[in-house]
């Protein structure tokens, strides 16, 4: 989150036509620049980035340091390749551009893409480096493309002249199957002191790789820590509930199946409470072992408890609720079974079918002639009937 103004120096010389980086060096460089700009602007909204080209007719500033990412990306279009790179002039112009930045509080940084051979000698580069250090400008060097004799040494000399407390870095990227931007993402050029752009970079890497992001929920904790945390917590809660429900089902299987069908919650009828228990039961069967089901089941059990028994409703205390109410118990058991429609474990289900069907008919969206409804009627319980009287028809119910 360091507040920084960055100037990126692009090499658009003839050497960039080479295809040893896919699709060609210039394109690989452009991709890397795009990613860097994104990472910088994202790590701190007040960061500014500017771009200049070092070859062509001469050093040309395409965009002065700005925080407008669109402007930066737009200026990368239509760049022409040609000429020879002038590294010294490029760095000096970058330094000048940084000197005239609007927000003097920003730290100054230059990122240089050195793809073509370097015609300056070591002494000159060291002088430039010292000048940068004196004006507290940090320098990142990306050495790619042409592998000249002496080029790495020259660049290392430049780096050591500039480097002040490890704020400057150099990366050598040989040609190969990996894209330039992928290699850069893992370097300190991106991960400034282990923080910052790593979130963006990781997401970008995921997009680039088109594969697993490595994060549990497809949400980068760096990008959106609250969302990631909420997802993780709800996932754990779900697991806990499912385990509790499974445990209860095991318990109830050993107990007598009472009559009551548990007005297990429904996808959307939770708030309606037990009034919709009939349809709820039906839908419940449809959604057995659904994650939401377990959650809603518990919630509905809670609301059920209010009317059926006097003991406190607690999230995971369904077994207690079931114990008080054999009907509930049965319903619970049913809800966790896959073959609920068969109702084969139900021995004592009362089916006051006429009453229940009349209730069902009053519910909008419920067709009493629907075969699934008919099946359900067979396992309808008195309890649900009582509840229907208490509450009005609830208006949801999908079948």
């Amino acid at each position, binding site marked *: 989150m360091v507040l920084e103004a960055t100037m990126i120096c692009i090499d658009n010389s003839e050497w960039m036509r080479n295809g040893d980086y896919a699709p060609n060096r210039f394109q690989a460089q452009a991709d890397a620049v795009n990613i860097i700009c994104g990472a910088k602007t994202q790590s701190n909204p007040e960061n500014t980035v500017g771009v200049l080209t070092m070859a062509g007719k001469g050093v040309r500033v395409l965009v002065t340091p700005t925080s407008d990412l669109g402007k930066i990306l737009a200026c990368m279009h239509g760049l022409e390749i040609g000429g020879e790179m002038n590294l010294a002039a490029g760095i000096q112009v970058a330094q000048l551009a940084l*000197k005239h930045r609007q927000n003097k509080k920003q730290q100054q940084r230059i990122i240089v893409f050195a793809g073509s051979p370097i015609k300056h000698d070591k002494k000159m580069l060291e002088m430039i480096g*010292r000048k940068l*250090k*004196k*004006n*507290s400008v940090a320098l990142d060097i990306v050495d790619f493309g042409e592998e000249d004799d002496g080029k790495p040494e020259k660049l290392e000399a430049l780096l050591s002249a500039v480097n002040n*407390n490890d704020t400057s870095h150099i990366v050598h990227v040989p040609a190969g199957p990996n894209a330039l931007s992928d290699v850069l993402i893992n370097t300190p050029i991106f991960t400034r002191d282990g923080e910052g752009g790593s979130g963006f970079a990781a997401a970008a890497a995921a997009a680039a790789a088109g594969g697993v992001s490595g994060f549990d929920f497809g949400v980068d904790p760096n990008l959106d820590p609250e969302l990631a945390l909420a997802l993780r917590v709800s996932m754990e809660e779900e697991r806990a509930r499912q385990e509790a429900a499974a445990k209860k089902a095991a318990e109830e299987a050993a107990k007598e199946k009472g009559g009551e069908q548990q007005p297990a919650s429904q996808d959307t009828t939770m708030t309606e409470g037990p009034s919709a228990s009939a349809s709820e039961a039906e839908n419940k069967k449809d959604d057995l072992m659904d994650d939401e089901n377990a959650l809603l089941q518990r919630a509905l059990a809670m609301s059920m408890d209010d009317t059926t028994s006097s003991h406190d409703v607690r999230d995971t205390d369904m077994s207690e609720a079931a114990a008080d109410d054999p009907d509930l118990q049965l319903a619970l058991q049913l809800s966790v079974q896959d073959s609920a429609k068969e109702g084969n474990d139900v021995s004592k289900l009362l089916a006051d079918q006429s009453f229940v069907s009349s209730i069902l008919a009053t519910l909008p969206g419920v067709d009493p002639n629907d075969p699934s409804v008919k099946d359900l009627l067979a396992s309808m319980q008195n309890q649900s009937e009582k509840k229907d009287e208490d509450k009005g028809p609830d208006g949801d119910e999908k079948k």
Partner: protein
Amino acid sequence: MSAESASGIQKNQVDLVDFIDWSGVECLNQSTVHSFPNALKQGYREDDGLVLESHADEQLLIYIPFIQVVKLHSIVVTGPEEEGPKTVKLFANREHMGFSNVNDFPPSDTIILSEDNIKGKPSILKYVKFQNVRSLTIFIEDNQSGSEITKAQKIALHGTTMETTDMKGLKKIEDH
């Protein structure tokens, strides 16, 4: 006035260290370990072991804003005999100078520090040039022996403050 200034600080001059706006002080080309508080801050500057050192070469550029407008009278710069500062240029009210444009403007005053000055004798400034100073830029161009690193043990500024409104003294006018 002239008799007193030869020996020391005038009676009505105060040490302006209390009026420095520390959040805005910048020092270019200082070494990371030996930084400007060693020379400027009360307590640190008295300790001769704590010095402000230059980093890449022998020049230093220190920008000091003040919390209110001051008049500068004199400056004390001490340092070791060899690496202590020699040529010091002062610029009043110039913001954010860099080494590249430091020679573009005429300085408000230039002092060449002699051996006495390096030991602690204050250098009197051209008072008329420093009547209305909101910020001061100190450019240390070279040092006594021409070595690679310049070291300054103490940089103290003396002067007076302008009359300013004492906000605590302001009282609301009662409505009658």
